[in-house]
C-alpha cells in the first residue's frame, strides 16, 4: 500500500477553485516529482497534505497517509504527524528560520517536542543532524543565529529540521529555486542521499523539468489545479504523450532562431569598453575604533562589446555581476577604472552630460512586478526614457512612439491605457522591453530578465529578445545564472567569480569545454533536461 494516497482532492479557497480531482500517490522510499507552472496548485497540494492551508480553504476528497485520514484527523493528531512522520522544506530559506532563535534551538525544538527528550539529548541529536546536512560543529556551532548563515546554509538548517526525526515522507516545495545552480546541485544531492539513507518518501515540487528528471522516480504534471499526466519520469518525458507535457518540455529546451549570428560581429569600433573596473563597498565595522575592511564586489574587470553583439555575464549569486551592470548603467560609480561608451567615458560625468549615453544604454530588470510604478499607466511607463531626448516630443508623437514600441514587443497599442497590474508576468516583461526600446538604444543591459518567468513564457520572451537583436541590431549584455538562457541567446560569454572575470569566449565553446574551476562548477551543476532523460533511460536499460 502506498505511503501517501491522494484521491480526487478538490480544494476551494474562499469559493475560488484551486484544485480539481487531484490524484497522486507516493510509495515508501519513492520520489515523486510534482511539476507545473505558477498557479498550477502544486504548493497547495503539498500544504493540504500538511494541513497547513489558509483559513478559508475547504478541501474534499481523500488524503491518506500511512493509514491515517488526513482531511478528517483532529488537529492534535496532525501536530503529532508534522515534523515527526512528515517533514517539509520550503522555497525561501532567507525567511524560513526564526531570526531571534539559534539554529540549535530551532533544530532541537522539534526533537524535544515529539520525543520528550531532555535538552542535552535533543541538542546532541540536533548536532548530529546538522553535521549530517553539512554544517560541521567547528564552523557552525548550535549557538549560531540564522543571520550569520548564507542562503544555502540556511536551507541546510531547514532540511535538518525537517529530517531530524527521520520522517516517512519529506515534502520539498521548490527547495532550490531561490539558490544559484551550484548550491542547487549541492542541496539536491543532499536531499537524494538523505532520502536513500532513511528510505523516506519524497514529494519534490519544482517548476524545473530537468531537476525533477534528475531526482524523481515518477512525475506528476499539473496545470490549473488539475493533473495532466502521471507516470515514470524518463519514459513520460521522453515520449511526451500529453500535449501539455510536450509543450513544457519543448519550452524548457527552447533555443530561439537567430539566423545571422555572426553577421552582427562587425569589426569596427567597440560599443562598450570596460577597463580595469573596481568597486569597493564599506564593510562591516568590527570594533568601534578600527576602520571597517572594505568589501571588493568587482575586482579589476575589463572587456569590450561590439555593436549588435550579444554577450552573457554568468556567475553564482553574489559574484558581483549585478554591481558591474549597475556601473555600466551609470547608476553606481566605480571605485577605480573606467567605462567608455562609444569612446566617451561614463564615469564622473553629470546627469546632463550622460544623456546621449543613457539614450543608447537601456535596461530590463528581473522582476516583472517591481519594475513599474503601479500608479502609472503603460503609456507613461513606456514613455519614461523619452525624458532623455533633447526635445520633448509632442503628446501626439509621444503616443505614436509608445504605440510603435508596444507593437515591436507584440502588444497592442491600446494596451497603453492600462495599468501594469492588468497584465500577466510575461506581458509585463514585454512592457519592460518596450520601455527599454523606445529611445532606439544600441545596448540593452538585461539583469536576469527571464528567471522570474514560467518556462513557456520564458521561451516567448527569449524569442522576442532574439528577434529584436536580429531586426534592430541591439547589442545585449545578458546577466544570468542560468546557462540554458546564456546558450540560447548569446554569442559570447564571460564567467564571473568573486568579482573577477575568470573565463571568456564563444558561448558554446566555453559551456561545452569549461577551463576555469568556476566555469566547470557552473556547467556541472546546471540542470539539463536532455542529458537527464538520457541518463535515466540508460539506468533503467
Amino acid at each position, binding site marked *: 500500500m502506498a505511503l501517501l494516497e491522494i484521491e480526487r482532492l478538490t480544494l476551494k479557497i474562499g469559493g475560488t477553485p484551486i484544485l480539481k480531482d487531484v490524484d497522486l500517490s507516493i510509495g515508501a522510499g519513492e520520489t515523486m516529482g510534482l511539476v507545473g507552472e505558477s498557479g498550477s496548485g502544486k504548493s497547495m497540494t503539498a500544504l493540504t497534505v500538511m494541513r497547513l492551508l489558509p483559513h478559508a480553504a475547504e478541501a474534499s476528497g481523500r488524503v491518506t497517509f500511512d493509514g491515517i485520514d488526513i482531511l478528517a484527523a483532529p488537529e492534535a493528531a496532525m501536530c503529532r504527524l508534522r515534523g515527526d512522520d512528515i517533514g517539509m522544506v520550503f522555497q525561501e530559506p532567507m525567511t524560513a528560520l526564526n531570526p531571534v532563535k539559534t539554529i540549535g534551538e530551532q533544530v532541537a525544538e522539534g526533537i524535544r517536542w515529539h520525543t520528550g527528550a531532555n535538552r542535552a539529548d535533543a541538542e546532541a541529536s540536533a548536532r548530529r543532524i546538522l553535521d549530517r546536512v553539512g554544517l560541521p560543529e567547528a564552523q557552525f556551532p548550535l549557538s549560531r543565529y540564522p543571520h550569520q548563515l548564507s542562503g544555502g546554509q540556511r536551507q541546510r538548517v531547514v532540511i535538518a529540521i525537517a529530517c531530524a526525526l527521520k520522517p516517512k515522507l519529506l515534502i520539498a516545495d521548490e527547495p532550490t529555486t531561490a539558490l544559484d545552480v551550484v548550491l542547487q546541485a549541492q542541496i539536491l544531492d543532499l536531499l537524494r542521499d538523505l532520502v536513500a539513507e532513511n528510505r523516506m518518501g519524497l514529494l519534490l515540487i519544482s517548476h524545473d523539468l530537468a531537476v525533477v528528471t534528475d531526482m524523481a522516480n515518477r512525475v506528476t504534471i499539473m496545470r490549473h489545479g488539475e493533473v495532466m499526466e502521471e507516470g515514470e519520469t524518463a519514459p513520460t518525458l521522453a515520449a511526451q504523450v500529453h500535449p501539455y507535457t510536450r509543450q513544457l518540455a519543448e519550452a524548457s529546451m527552447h533555443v530561439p532562431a537567430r539566423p545571422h549570428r555572426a553577421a552582427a560581429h562587425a569589426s569596427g569600433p567597440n560599443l562598450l569598453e570596460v577597463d580595469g573596473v573596481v568597486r569597493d563597498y564599506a564593510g562591516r565595522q568590527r570594533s568601534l575604533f578600527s576602520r571597517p575592511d572594505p568589501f571588493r564586489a568587482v575586482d579589476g574587470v575589463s572587456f569590450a562589446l561590439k555593436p549588435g553583439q550579444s554577450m552573457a555575464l554568468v556567475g553564482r549569486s553574489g559574484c558581483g555581476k549585478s554591481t558591474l551592470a*549597475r556601473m555600466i*548603467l551609470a*547608476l553606481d560609480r566605480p571605485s577605480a577604472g573606467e567605462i567608455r561608451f562609444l569612446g566617451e567615458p561614463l564615469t564622473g560625468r553629470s*546627469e546632463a552630460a*550622460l*544623456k546621449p549615453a*543613457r539614450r543608447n*544604454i*537601456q*535596461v530590463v*530588470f*528581473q*522582476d516583472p*512586478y*517591481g*519594475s*513599474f*510604478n*503601479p*500608479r502609472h499607466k503603460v503609456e507613461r511607463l513606456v514613455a*519614461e*526614457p523619452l*525624458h*532623455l531626448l533633447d526635445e520633448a516630443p509632442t503628446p501626439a508623437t509621444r503616443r505614436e512612439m509608445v504605440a510603435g514600441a508596444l507593437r515591436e514587443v507584440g502588444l497592442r497599442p491600446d494596451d497603453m491605457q492600462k*495599468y501594469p*497590474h*492588468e497584465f500577466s508576468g510575461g506581458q509585463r516583461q514585454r512592457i*519592460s522591453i518596450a*520601455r527599454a526600446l523606445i529611445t532606439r538604444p544600441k545596448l540593452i543591459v538585461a539583469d536576469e530578465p527571464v528567471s522570474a518567468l514560467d518556462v513557456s513564457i520564458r521561451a516567448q520572451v527569449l524569442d522576442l529578445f532574439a528577434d529584436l537583436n536580429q531586426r534592430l541590431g541591439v547589442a545585449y549584455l545578458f546577466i544570468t545564472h542560468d546557462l540554458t538562457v546564456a546558450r540560447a541567446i548569446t554569442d559570447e560569454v564571460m564567467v564571473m567569480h568573486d568579482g573577477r572575470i575568470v573565463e571568456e569566449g564563444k558561448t558554446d565553446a566555453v559551456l561545452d569545454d569549461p577551463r576555469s574551476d568556476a566555469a566547470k562548477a557552473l556547467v556541472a551543476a546546471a540542470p539539463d533536461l536532455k542529458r537527464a532523460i538520457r541518463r535515466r533511460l540508460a539506468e533503467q536499460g
Partner: protein
Amino acid sequence: MAAEPLDLPQAEQGLVAAAFSNRSFVAGFAITAVVAAMALLSFLWTPFDVTRLVPADRMQGLSWTHPFGTDHFGRDILSMIMVGARNSIAVAVVAVCMGMGVGVPLGCWAAARGGLIDEALMRFNDLVFAFPALLTAVLITAIFGPGAINAIIAIGVFYIPVFARVARAGAMSLWPREFILAARAAGKNKTLITIEHILPNIASILLVQGTIQFALGILAEAGLSYVGLGAQPPMPSWGRMLFDAQTRMIVAPHLALFPGLAIVVTVLGLNLLGDGLRDVLDPKLRRQR
C-alpha cells in the same frame, strides 16, 4: 507600522467603492463629517451666543432649551461645544499641515540623499522626540505666553519629525526598487523621481498617518487648553470647559460629561477613518484584520 506602500489591489477608481464598503471607514467618515458640519454651522448659527453671559441661567441641567445644560456663567453648553469644535479642528488641521509641509520634504530629502544628511535628520528627530509635546508647549508658552497659535506651533513642531520619519521610511523602501532604478536609467534626477515616483507611492501611508496625527492633535489641544496653555477665554474650547467643570463636578457632573464626550467621539471618528483608510489602501495590513 511597516507599511508596504505598493501593490495596489485594484485600480485607483475602485478605491472609493472599496472605501465605502469598509465598515470602519464609513463609521469614521460619518462621525467626522458630523463634527466638521457642526463646526462649520457654528460660524453661521449657534443655539445661543457663547460670548453673552446670562447669570440668571447659570448651572442649569438638561432641558429642551439647553439640551446639554448651561455653565457657571449661564452659557449654553451645546453652543460652546459647537464653537469649541471649530477651535479643536483648526488647531489640529494647521498642526498636521505644518508637520506634513515641513516633515515630508525633509524625510524625502534625507532618503534621496542618504549619508550625512540622513544621519543629521535622524539625530534631529531624536532630539525633538526627547522633548515630549507638552514640554515643547510649556517652553513655547514660557516665551510667548499662552494662546491658540502657540498651541498650534507646539503641536506642529512635534509633528515634523513624525512625518519626516514616516516619509523617510516609505521613501527608503522605494529607492532600491527596480522601477526607481529604471527611472534613474531614464536620466531623471532625484527631485524629479521623488515627485513622480516616490510621493504618489507614499501618499497613502501619509494620508493614514495624517488622520492619526489629526486625532492626536485634538487630544493634545484639549490637554493644553485644560492646563490653560491653549485657546484663552472667552473663546470656548473643550479642554478649558473640562477645567472649568472640574471644581463644580460634585454639583453638576454634566458640565464635565459633554465636552469630554465631544472629544472622545471626534477622536474615535478620526481613528476609525484612519483604520478604514489603512485597510483600503494597504492590502498587506488588511489581511491581518
